[in-house]
């Protein structure tokens, strides 16, 4: 299990290298990129924040995008609180490492080992994620023009790679298509950053219809 945790940590660390590079290409300093990984520590939210800031969106639009993407962690945390029964101050640590990967590993772990799986995966990812960010940010800071390196094309590819595993059924495909088109249609009419929030409206029909 510890080997699995380390394997996931290495894979997400590689992903963090691209976050560090993209963050610096979007105009963040190396300390800002590293602080984002240390404190925010949620892949999709981090990418969304720097993508919105980098495309000229307001800080508020960036923060809102990050929060909307981070809301699924609340669902994971409810599940983990029920499964792991962590008490006291350790919950403050458990909260920070509540992610797609740590949740998935805890759910898949044999009975009795759920807590080990959760904390080992979370800790491995935390260390390697921040190491990867530092490497990527330093690399991009020394490499020069982000567009010449194609880093602006790396951003949508990163979002696509995050999105693809979640497209499991017809509803998720429909929501993705609607979100993508709504956001594109909004681009000419609203400030940068806002189209992404408008994409969120794709789930509204699910709220009104049973």
């Amino acid at each position: 299990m510890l080997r699995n945790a380390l394997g996931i940590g290495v894979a997400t660390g590689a992903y963090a290298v691209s976050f560090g590079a993209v963050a610096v290409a979007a105009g963040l300093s190396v300390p800002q990129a590293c602080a984002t990984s240390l404190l925010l520590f949620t892949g999709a939210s981090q990418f969304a924040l720097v993508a919105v800031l980098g495309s000229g969106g307001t800080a508020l639009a960036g923060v809102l995008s990050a929060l909307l993407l981070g809301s699924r962690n609340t669902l994971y945390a409810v599940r983990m609180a029920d499964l792991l029964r962590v008490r006291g101050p350790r919950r403050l640590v458990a909260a920070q490492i509540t992610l797609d990967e740590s949740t998935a590993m805890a759910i898949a772990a044999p009975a009795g080992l759920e807590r080990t799986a959760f904390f080992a995966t979370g800790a491995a990812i935390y260390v390697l994620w921040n190491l990867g960010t530092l490497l990527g940010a330093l690399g991009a800071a020394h490499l020069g023009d982000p567009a010449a390196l194609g880093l602006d094309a790396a951003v949508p590819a990163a979002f696509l790679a995050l999105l693809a595993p979640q497209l499991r059924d017809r509803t998720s495909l429909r929501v993705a298509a609607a979100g993508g088109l709504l956001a594109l249609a909004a681009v000419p009419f609203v400030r940068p950053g806002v189209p992404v929030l408008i994409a969120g409206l794709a789930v509204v029909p699910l709220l009104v219809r049973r």
Partner: protein
Amino acid sequence: MSTWSAVLLASAGCYALKLLGWTLPSRALDNARVRRPALLLPIALLAGLVTVQTFGASRALDLDARAAGLAVAAVAVLLRAPFLVVVALAAVTAALLRLV
């Protein structure tokens, strides 16, 4: 709002969202009307990020090397390439197109 405030505010907010889940009673979100939209919301936002970051310019749409990068990335995703390979292929494609 500066970049630093955005980073700190988003961090505080996302941590609060995680901590909230750890303190809610386990039945709190046990309701399909909450769960389904909450799980589908990231899908809508990620799809919006894909299209806007590929075709968006400031208040306009644009077809450039990023679209070619995304097309290559889509093929890589279908072939189940690892994350870093997908991202690197998109970047290399766009960079090469801009060279020629």
